[in-house]
């Protein structure tokens, strides 16, 4: 899940210092938000649908044990295999086991956040499997040994010149191949097509599993989700245990809100529903289907007050809406799950010690909650995680100590009054026209870019007392 070894504030500084990335992220985020608004406007009953989508997620998770059990039964009845992977290691072990047992050598992958969470590519490559990312953005990321910066638009941070350079240097492209974006797309199509035709293993993610039918639904725009799950002999679907809905009808509701929220389209180009491996009489499709149910901390989160984050359908809207993400882009979060959802999910799954900074990277404006198709209350959980961080001792020393001192003073009225009066007088000395241009110590971080209002020379309590004395207690 971790994508960087650098400390949090260093990552932020790096992100802010890169004007090209900032421009790209802000530009794309703005457009995406506009598309989303337009798409939802066009949809009659959009609000009711979002409520319904939330109910479906809540209902599913409230009885996840039952629904998941049904899912397993149905997949196996179709001749598929299901593995419950309690940890990332369990998931890796299963996939590597299938690869070994079937002698698989070349894997094509369509987008799977789970596979990045458990670092599947590295494990397979260590076993000598050739792994080819086929999502155009992920392919570029793979060539560059980079990390995706948005869960839906992985190379948000790269310009087309960056991509051209990568194709020239690392993919054997000619100058003509990188003339413009359509040429680069066609180049990638040709190269990756060869991968699809050679591969004996297809690895995909799962947008939604359907419990009643044992289906997995994969939504893509490029078509790589279909090729990955049609051409190779074996298909392995990586699925978070929470990515489930009970029935096809429920799936329909989720599909109505997913693309509209994420990309502003009414539906992704391919809403691909797979129910078991190839059937007798069919002409193509995989011989074998494996579904890996990845837990990796999710069952620990379920049934706590952070469980709501498991409603997430990975549309990416909250990233685009977040003013912090808009300035930083995804890499600064240091996790495969960035943005508002990542600020909750990363510490929830990995433990508060690992990503305790992320919940602080927020002004709690609530934009994420407003755009979420299943109405997840992210700000509530950010606050909760901040509490947990403090309780776990993850506050910087100066804040922890400072809060203790403040608490001592604030709970003693006489001390509070004295301190307030002293601060007022000191500030009076330093202020110009009612503003403090520079504050000492850590408070200086505030005044580096803006002024701080100076406290009044006299506190309200003091003025009130004076006024009472003057008017003899009458209002």
């Amino acid at each position: 899940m971790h994508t960087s070894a650098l400390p949090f504030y260093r990552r932020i500084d790096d992100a802010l210092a890169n004007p090209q990335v900032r421009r790209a992220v802000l530009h794309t985020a703005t457009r995406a938000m506009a598309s989303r608004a337009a798409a939802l406007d066009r949809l009659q009953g959009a609000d009711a649908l979002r409520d319904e989508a939330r109910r479906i997620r809540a209902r599913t998770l409230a009885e996840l044990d039952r629904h998941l059990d049904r899912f397993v039964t149905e997949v196996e009845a179709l001749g598929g295999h299901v593995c419950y992977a309690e940890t990332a290691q369990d998931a890796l072990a299963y996939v590597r086991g299938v690869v070994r047992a079937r002698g698989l050598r070349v894997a094509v992958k369509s987008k799977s956040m789970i596979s990045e969470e458990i670092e599947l590519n590295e494990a397979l490559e260590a076993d000598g499997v050739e792994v080819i990312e086929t999502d155009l953005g992920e392919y570029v990321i793979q060539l560059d040994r980079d990390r995706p910066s948005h869960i839906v638009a992985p190379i948000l941070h790269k310009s087309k010149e960056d991509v051209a350079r990568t194709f020239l240097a690392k993919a054997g492209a000619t100058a003509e191949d990188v003339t413009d974006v359509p040429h680069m797309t066609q180049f990638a199509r040709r190269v990756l097509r060869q991968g699809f035709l050679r591969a004996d293993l297809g690895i995909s993610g799962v947008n939604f599993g359907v419990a009643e039918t044992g289906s997995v639904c994969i939504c893509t725009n490029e078509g790589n989700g279909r090729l990955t799950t049609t051409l190779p002999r074996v298909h392995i679907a990586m699925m978070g245990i929470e990515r489930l809905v009970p029935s096809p009808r429920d799936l329909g509701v989720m599909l109505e809100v997913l693309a509209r929220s994420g990309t502003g389209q009414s539906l992704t180009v391919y809403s691909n529903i797979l129910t078991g491996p190839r059937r007798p009489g069919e002409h193509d499709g995989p011989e074998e289907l494996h579904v890996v149910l990845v837990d990796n901390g999710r069952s620990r989160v379920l049934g706590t007050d952070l469980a709501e984050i498991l409603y997430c359908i990975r549309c990416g809207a909250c990233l685009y809406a977040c003013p912090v993400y808009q300035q930083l882009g995804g890499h600064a979060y240091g996790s495969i799950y960035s943005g508002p959802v990542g600020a909750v999910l990363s510490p929830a799954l990995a433990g508060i010690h690992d990503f305790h900074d992320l919940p602080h990277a927020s002004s709690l404006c609530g934009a994420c909650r407003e755009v979420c198709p299943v109405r997840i209350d992210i700000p509530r959980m950010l606050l909760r995680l901040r509490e947990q961080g403090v309780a776990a001792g993850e506050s910087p020393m100066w804040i922890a100590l400072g809060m203790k001192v403040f608490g001592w003073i604030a709970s003693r009225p006489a001390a509070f009054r004295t301190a307030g009066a002293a601060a007022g007088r000191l500030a009076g000395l330093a202020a110009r026209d009612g503003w403090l241009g520079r504050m000492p110590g850590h408070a200086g971080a505030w005044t580096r870019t803006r002024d701080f209002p100076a406290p009044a020379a006299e506190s309200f309590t003091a003025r009130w007392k004076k006024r009472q004395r003057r008017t003899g207690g009458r209002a």
Partner: protein
Amino acid sequence: MTPGQRARMQELLGAAVKRGLFPSSAPGAHGAHGAHGAAGAAAPAAASPARATGEADRLVRFRAELTALAGTVHEADGVEAIADLVAELARAEGSPRVIAWSEGALGVPGLHASIAARGLEIVPPDVDHDGRSRQEQLDRLASASVGVTGADVILADTGSIVVLSGPGRPRLASLLTPVHVALVHPDRIVGSISELLATRPELVSAGSNLVAITGPSRTADIEHTLSRGVHGPREVHAVVCRFAAAAGPGEP
């Protein structure tokens, strides 16, 4: 899944679920949590502004939506018209090979012969996983220019073409070639994906693959600039065939 693994899964999830789920309802929303979403029990309102009522309306809507996605909608009054279109598209792509559903699945008897009569070759659709034939099969299929399929249903609100895999219905016919031609029947049209899955959930299990195709393959990964034909077809042509006898899913 081994019984041991299954038991472990039940144990962990059962314990988690028993702990109870927070919060009870969405902030500010009127949704109810848990099993008693009484209002939620009803099917959601059909997702469409000014819902198209008659089939004619729906077809107009379908045409508008697919065209907005850079797809093309044609009308064909007979077998020859379809074959002419396929031949024209194949010529433009520079390859005479075609991947096609069986005539039974298409509901257009004589189409294969008409296509062949125009100098095109309908390649065998089978892809084996074992044996030397796989490489040959894939080479032939990968060199095809046009894929011809039917459509089990089309979705008016989104301009989508829904196809189900099965005997006589290779997945690759709507996937591998740069051009996809889908023969659509005006009777088989519903409003939206949510309507389809609510009213005909059994379709999901009728084959190994049910896919709703909404326009040509696309990406905006590079600088948010739209490109078509990334991995799937670059062009999607829907041909409205009122004369055809539409075959049901599962009928070869």
